């Protein structure tokens, strides 16, 4: 009987800390402050998805991963020029300021159909 009481009392400070942490960085607040994450996967010779829609003025994180070899991710109008290495996710933070439909290309030569590896970023 004694042992559970000890455990219970010992847990009180920990619970307090957890509650405090939750209060400081709870899900709703984190959701409000953190940029939206858009995951984009690359493999020869395509991006998945091949189109993403962003909102003008909204900061988002493009989380880029490669399933095979090193790829590039290049879009001059949004000043994106990233390398995507396999096994090493690359985060690119963007805040598009201009609406439009933009072709994004792999600019790291990845094989015979490299020239056709592209996707579209739509900014509304």
């Amino acid at each position, binding site marked *: 009987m004694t042992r559970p009481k000890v455990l219970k009392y010992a847990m009180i400070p920990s619970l307090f800390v957890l509650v405090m942490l939750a209060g400081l960085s709870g899900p709703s607040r984190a959701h409000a402050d953190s940029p939206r994450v858009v995951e984009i996967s690359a493999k020869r010779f395509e991006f998945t998805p091949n189109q993403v829609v962003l909102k003008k003025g909204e900061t988002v994180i493009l989380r880029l991963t490669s399933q095979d070899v090193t790829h*590039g991710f290049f*879009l001059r109008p949004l000043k994106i020029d990233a390398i995507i290495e396999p096994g090493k996710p690359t985060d690119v933070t963007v805040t598009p300021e201009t609406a439009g439909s933009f072709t994004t290309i792999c600019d790291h030569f990845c094989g015979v159909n490299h020239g056709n590896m592209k996707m579209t970023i739509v900014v509304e």
Partner: protein
Amino acid sequence: MKKDFDRRSFMKIAGTSLGIGVLYSAFPAAAAGGETGEMFSFLGKQSGEKVAPFSFVQLSDAHVGFNGPPDPLGTKAFERAVEMINQLPRRPDLVLFTGDLTHDSEDHDVHSQRMKQFMEISKRMNVPVIKHVPGEHDAGLDGGALYRDFLGETYYSFDHRGVHFIGLDNVSRAKPEVGAEQLAWLKNDLSGFHKSAPIVVFTHRPLFDLKPEWEWFTSDGDDVMNALAPYENVTVLYGHIHRDDEHEVGHVHHYAARSLIFAFPDPEKVADKKPNPFDKDHPFKNLGIRLVHEGVGGKPKMNTVTVEDVELTAREFSGINGIQQILKTPNF
């Protein structure tokens, strides 16, 4: 001796595109005498060569080994180009090949065989000097290792009859860039030249933003052009875009050669990057050579730049249009 001269007098770009490359004539203006002539004489003496007008050809994008649509002819246009060069009334001093000599393969042996085939066809050219730079299909997958095995360094410079030629590699780092090391080399290479020195840069990708979403650019091309900016007589020749193009950035003229395999359309007129469809009646349509002469009518004129494009057709070869002519002709 450092003397200025009119930069426009350096090179006459008068052209006749015969469908397969570009022939340029450098008119060093030595015959004109005065400061211009002195400058070229000085540069010529530096390189140990006689200063005289000369012609050279630019070829690009043969893609030896390519066997997919839209072009079913393989190396036929390249071979036709070689034949035409050998028939030119005045033999060119040089051929500059601006990349994509071969089509890439992940199989080293296959790619090596394609490079051998390229070399075999090239050797048929009755031209004293042939210089190359790689395209991404030659050097993008292996960092230029195979290319170097066959052709040596991917960037370098040389002098010919008073003109300084610089070959730049904007492909073998896999991304469209020359990189810091090559840029430092370029600045050092240029440092010994007067601002009036005639310079021809040849490379694969355009050094300016021609169509970035089609990968028609070099990401640090501005750095290259800034390094060249103090020099008044710079001409840039490139390939990659499979169509002829002329562009002026500042006082630098950029010229693209047509390809020897298939053509791309005008990016201002179409949305997607797709090759032009093969035309069996005009199999060499939009494949090209640009012959460039000094002055008009064969007489060198100062300060004259004239470009004339003439598309190669099969008709001139045997009087029969199209692919049937090629199939029926023994040498083809």
